[in-house]
């Protein structure tokens, strides 16, 4: 039996922000500021999305002398579909105290 898809409130927020500019590559600091999530919440969410194929990433160019290249992220088509489901409310919230694996 397929389990219902669900995501935490923080991941929903992240999906909404990423889906607002679906083709743009975004970096972690920018996402943190736009979502209001700290890096302690943001990175685990990004990692889970990436692990499950909802997010793609690449290394960008350095943005100034002596500054390292940044890791950039955007949603895959699968991730966009997930974001739309999240926005439309068809993505159930996790059960209280119990988190389940998200399936597209």
């Amino acid at each position, binding site marked *: 039996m397929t389990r219902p898809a*669900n995501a935490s409130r923080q991941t929903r927020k992240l999906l909404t922000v990423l889906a607002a500019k679906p083709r743009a590559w975004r970096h972690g600091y920018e996402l943190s500021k736009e979502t209001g999530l700290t*890096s302690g*919440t943001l*990175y685990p969410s*990004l990692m889970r999305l990436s*692990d499950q194929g909802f997010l793609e990433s690449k290394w960008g160019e350095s943005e100034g002398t002596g500054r390292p290249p940044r*890791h950039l992220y955007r949603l895959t088509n699968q991730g966009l579909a997930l974001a739309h489901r999240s926005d439309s409310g068809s993505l159930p919230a996790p059960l209280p105290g119990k988190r*389940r*694996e998200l399936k597209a």
Partner: protein
Amino acid sequence: MKSGSPRGSIARALVDLAAWSLPTHRADWAAAMRAELEYAEDRRSAFVWALGCLRSGLNERLLAWSLLDIRAIRWMLALWLGYRAEDILCDVALVLSYKAPQLGLTALLTHCAQGEDYQRIIPFLDVTTYWTIGAWMLVSGLYLLVVALLLRRAAHAANLLILTAALNVALWLRELGEPLYVSAFSPNDHLWDALMYVGTAFLGWICWTNARRRACTTL
């Protein structure tokens, strides 16, 4: 972020620690955290960013480990909980040997109170109810059950451990509300008890959160 400032150095050290904490398959994420730190607007943001990264790193490390699958950890925990169960049973025997001498537990009293002057705890023994004794015996029994579950690698060992440890702490806190209990023992004894109970509860919490998170790979 400007280099050379003390807080900047602390932030870099924290992100380095976060990167070190992350499992090897997360190396790209570790590099991403380090790179992003260099774009922080000011030292305070860099510091907050670094703390968050450290939290992520430690979480991921804990997720990568299944603590109770590691034999050495399982056995050490089992030995510790066995000791806790024995310690509680000794206390129960001590109380029963005083309150119910017909049970013939005097020999146990000699064993459990070796070298201790137990006269000073007699007022406390007088007010200890059988209900309390039963509750302590239940906690001890539950600890022994957790030991058995741990050694059988049963899935619910961590759940029962956190419940038992919480019950143990609750009983201890209830006793702390009894002035005769507080006055019966020295501050050092109470400090030792606090370390025992809170330490066991902390171990239980680590095992429980680890088992819970591993069971739920989520978004």
